[in-house]
Every structure is written in structure tokens, then in C-alpha cells.
């Protein structure tokens, strides 16, 4: 890693971004109308993710039935070809993947109004087609889009982003090269507020730098929220136009 210049003196990163710039963010919703109740396809930089939301539906087993609220389940399928080099194992039941799933469930349990769907199950299925760092944030964004598409009631959008810390400079929305070279923090931000529904710190971060890292992360997440909102509104306008022309 030493030969690569993560952050040049001119203030440019490996892929030409500045410290506070997001990666290309493109999304579309309702991509799989027959296979699911809500679906999205998200490209955040080189992360490519398909998300399917099925439900609220009848739970598969009795144990998944909660008389007071809906049961949330997240299944992550990280494909073997998602990284630069093909991995030998399918990532099923890998500790890391299970951990991702649990933290996603915890994040969205608080965002979805589960209490208005008693005795049902909401099944979220994520397929990672390609990954290039900051995957957790992209997963959150993809799931938010698909949930809104499914018409499931939520308190707010959740937008996710990963911020790295290079020496003293926070770097917004890191890619895999940067992620491997420095410590990073993943945020799940609630709407346009400064509330966090997820704060994932897997590496050591100097405490006095954490504030600036969080600040740029929240600002970036707000920007992502706006981008998702734009996409949803574009879609909604199209639908309403269709409906009114009938």
C-alpha cells in the first residue's frame, strides 16, 4: 500500500475525488416488480447491489410470528464474483456476513413502523453483484429505497456512508483501496437529522478526530438522502402521471 498515494498533497484521492466528495450515486426502484413487493438497484461507485423486499407477508414458521409487530429478516448474498478476485467460498454463514445481517436488522428495526404490521414478516434480500469498499453504507441505501418502493411505512429515510480517516483528514465515502489502508467508520443517518441509527467502528479512531469524521459523514449521508429522494420522486411523478392519464 505504501507505493500508492492515498491522499496527494494537492488534496486528491486515488480516484480523483477530493476529501469531501461522494462517489457516483445512481439508483432505480421497482426493478423487479414480479419477484418482490419492492425492489431497487443501486450503484454507488463500483458497488452494485440488488435489493428485494418481500412483504409484509405471512411468516414462514410459527417462530417468526410476533403478535405485536412484524418480524424483520435480512438475507445478504455476497456473490463469489463480487470482488476483484473470485472467492472460493460462497459467503453464506460467514461470520462477517452474519454480523452485517444482524446490524442491518438492528438498524431498520428502528426505522420501519413494525407495530402497524402485526403477525407478519418483512423479508429483505440483498444481492451484492460487485463491491468496492463501504459496502455497509450502500446496503443501507439499497434497502431504504426498496422499502419505500414496497410501500412499507417508515419514520424516516436511513442513508449510509463510510468515512475513513487518513492521518488527520477525513475521507468521505471510501473505496476498497482506501478502506484497506486506513481506519474507517460507517454511519447510518436518520433522514435530515443528526441522529444515527448505525455507528459501526471496526478500527481504532483517535477520539479527537471522531467529530470531524462524523460531521462530514452526516453531511454526505444527507446528500445521499436527497439523491434517493430525487429518484423516488421522479418515479412517483411518473406513476401519478400514468394514473391521471387513465
Amino acid at each position, binding site marked *: 500500500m505504501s507505493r500508492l498515494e492515498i491522499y496527494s498533497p494537492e488534496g486528491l484521492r486515488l480516484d480523483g475525488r477530493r476529501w469531501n466528495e461522494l462517489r457516483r450515486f445512481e439508483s432505480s426502484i421497482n426493478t423487479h416488480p414480479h419477484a418482490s413487493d419492492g425492489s431497487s438497484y443501486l450503484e454507488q461507485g463500483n458497488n452494485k447491489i440488488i435489493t428485494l423486499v418481500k412483504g409484509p407477508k405471512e411468516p414462514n414458521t410459527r417462530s417468526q410470528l410476533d403478535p405485536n409487530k412484524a418480524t424483520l429478516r435480512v438475507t445478504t448474498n455476497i456473490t463469489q464474483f463480487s470482488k476483484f478476485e473470485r472467492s472460493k467460498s460462497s459467503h453464506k454463514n460467514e461470520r462477517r456476513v452474519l454480523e452485517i445481517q444482524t446490524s442491518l436488522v438492528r438498524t431498520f428495526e428502528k426505522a420501519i*413502523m413494525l407495530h402497524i404490521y402485526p403477525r407478519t414478516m418483512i423479508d429483505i434480500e440483498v444481492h451484492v453483484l460487485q463491491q468496492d469498499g463501504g459496502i455497509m453504507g450502500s446496503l443501507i441505501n439499497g434497502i431504504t429505497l426498496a422499502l419505500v418502493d414496497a410501500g412499507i411505512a417508515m419514520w424516516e429515510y436511513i442513508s449510509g456512508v463510510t468515512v475513513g480517516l487518513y492521518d488527520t483528514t477525513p475521507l468521505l465515502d471510501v473505496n476498497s483501496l482506501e478502506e484497506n489502508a486506513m481506519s474507517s467508520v460507517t454511519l447510518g443517518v436518520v433522514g435530515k437529522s443528526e441522529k444515527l441509527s448505525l455507528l459501526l467502528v471496526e478500527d481504532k479512531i483517535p477520539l479527537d478526530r471522531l467529530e470531524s469524521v462524523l460531521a462530514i459523514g452526516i453531511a454526505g449521508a*444527507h446528500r445521499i438522502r436527497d439523491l434517493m429522494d430525487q429518484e423516488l420522486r421522479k418515479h412517483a411523478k411518473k406513476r401519478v402521471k400514468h394514473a391521471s392519464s387513465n
Partner: protein
Amino acid sequence: MSAVITVVKKNGGFQNANMVLNKSIQGFVSSDEDEDNILDNDIDISSSESDSENGTSKDRLSFQIVTPGELITEDPIWMRGHGTYFLNEMTYSSVAGVVSRVNRLLSVIPLRGRYSPETGDHVIGRIVEVGNKRWKVDIGAKQYAVLMLGSVNLPGGILRRKSESDELQMRTFLKEGDLLNAEVQSLFQDGSASLHTRSLKYGKLRNGLFIQVPSSLIVRAKNHTHNLPGNITVVLGVNGYIWLRKTSQMDIAKDLPPGGSTGAGSTIKSNIGNQNGGLSANSTNVSITRLEEESSWQIYSDENDPDLSNSIRITITRYANVIKALAYCEIGITQERIVSAYEASMAYPNIGSLIEREVMESLGADVINGEKMRGNAV
């Protein structure tokens, strides 16, 4: 935390515009306004509120699109309905959809979502489970509906007592995978439905083909069974499940004027030969004895009619593809539109080609144009 960096989009890239130190909430709101300027030209909150104060300026408000977490109104006078939530005297949206205001009730109608049953809905469902004195039916809602053994017509007539042997042979009436049409009898506390089939127009479905469309495309109406040209009958379930079948004698009877539409099929059955005479006298008296005669084992038969001809099957598939085309164009599905799209589809001899994207679009356009020409477009 105190520092917030607003990321502003300029010339296609993201640049750091200003670093605002937010000691107070006020400062945060100001950065919010910055973002609003970047956002596209949606109906902003302030203007919609002034409208609501004025009262009923519906034409503009009816298309107010909101997304989760968006402030709809600060006016506490509104009652909050589905798709909204209330926080500190303010009403927010919880789904992406269109704001609807009925009197003082404020709700958001989601753009998509599962079918939610209402009492009296005519639905089509599939049996998924045979349980204790009840069947579980998938009607495309959030939960399975229940069909009690006591809510079906059993062979032998309506007045027959349900015995233990009936409980034991429930699978001979309806088993897993069977399709039936039914009416929503009542709703449970949690929103799931209880069904009944106590009318001759309900019951097991045979001689046809099942299609599924989004439930939003089917509007609740007085009648959901329609006879179509080509000897086909369509049952448009409110839940978006559609059944296309060969027109039966009951269906023909149903189409006849007064009295014929309320399960009185059996009385008219004898009249089919001479439809012109003596109709009104007979069709008005729906007797229980007639119902008994009709409720034979035949209504739970799994066999298709032996005379289900190839041409009927072809017509059914044509109708099925026509309905798929209407659903693709997101056009509300009604009898008139199915017929008009069916007529338009005659230009394509190959039925399989009807579900090619361009063809579906042109069929949809044909239907809409046809309605505009006739001047009955909504």
C-alpha cells in the same frame, strides 16, 4: 457534534461549499434551506400549507407527492390517517405516495403496497393450508385470510348441518393449491380477512386461467364478473387476482336483467333456452331449495369440462395477454377496457407477440385513445 459541512453539487461534482458551525437548531435549519435550493422543483411545504389554510383547493393538492419523513402540515387540526404519523403537533408522511384529504382526515395513499382487504370485497384466492375447521387462503394481502368450514356451501344444501365427517373430509372440498373466489365477510383486529363463499357466484374455480395484476389497477365495483365476447367470462378480484374462464350457464344467467345477479343462477338456468319469454317472473324468486339443488358435489369438482375446446383455450390466452398488456401500461382494468384492448389485439394474429413490449405499449395507447375519441376518458 457541532460542525456540519454542506456538500453542494456544482458542475456535476461535489464540492465543499461552506462549513457551518451549528451551535443551535436554528443553524441546522439554515443549512437545510441550502439543500432545498439544490433539490428539484417540488411543491414546497410552505405553499401547500397556505393552500390547506384556505380550505379546499383540491386540484393542486391532490397530486402532492410526499416521501417518508416529509412534513405534510404543522396544522394540528387534521386527523391523521394511514401513511402518516404525528410528532410534536406536526404531521409527517410515513410512505411515498399522494396526499389525500377527505374532510379533516389526512392520509397518504402509497404508490405501491399490498392489497388490504375490506368487508364485501370480491376476491380470488388460493388455498395454502387446511386447518382445524378452516382453510387458510392466500389473497395477496399481508396475511392469509381464513375461510371457515361454516362459511362455505357444502354439498347437500345450505340447511345441512356440519358434521364431524365434514371436518374430516375438508380436503375433498378444497385442498392446497385450489383456487376459489369468495367475498370478504369480516375483518379481524389485525387487518386479516375472514371469507365466505355462501353464494353460487363464489366457490371453486375451474375451466380457466389465473393471472395476477397489481391490486391498485382493479377498482371496487358492484359487479366483478363480466361476460366477454368469445364465450369467455372474467372474474376481476379486487385483490388483483384475475380468473378467465369459459362462460358457464350460470354466467349467462347472471347477465340477464333483474334478479339474475344475486346468486339466482339456478332459477334462470332453465330459461336459457327461451331467454325472451317469462323471464322476469321466474328470476325474482330465489329459493333456498334451488340453492340446495345446485350445491351438489359438482361445485367442488377438480375436473375441467370435457368440451373445453382448443379455440376457447386460445381465446382465454389472448385475453390473458391483453390483461397483462393493460397491467404493463398501468391502465385500470375494467370490462370495457379489456374488450376494447381485445378488439385492438386482433391486429396481431400471434398471441405470443401480444406481450412484447412495443405491442403492449401500442395496445395501451389504443385503449386510451379510443376512450378519448368516444369522449369518456376520465
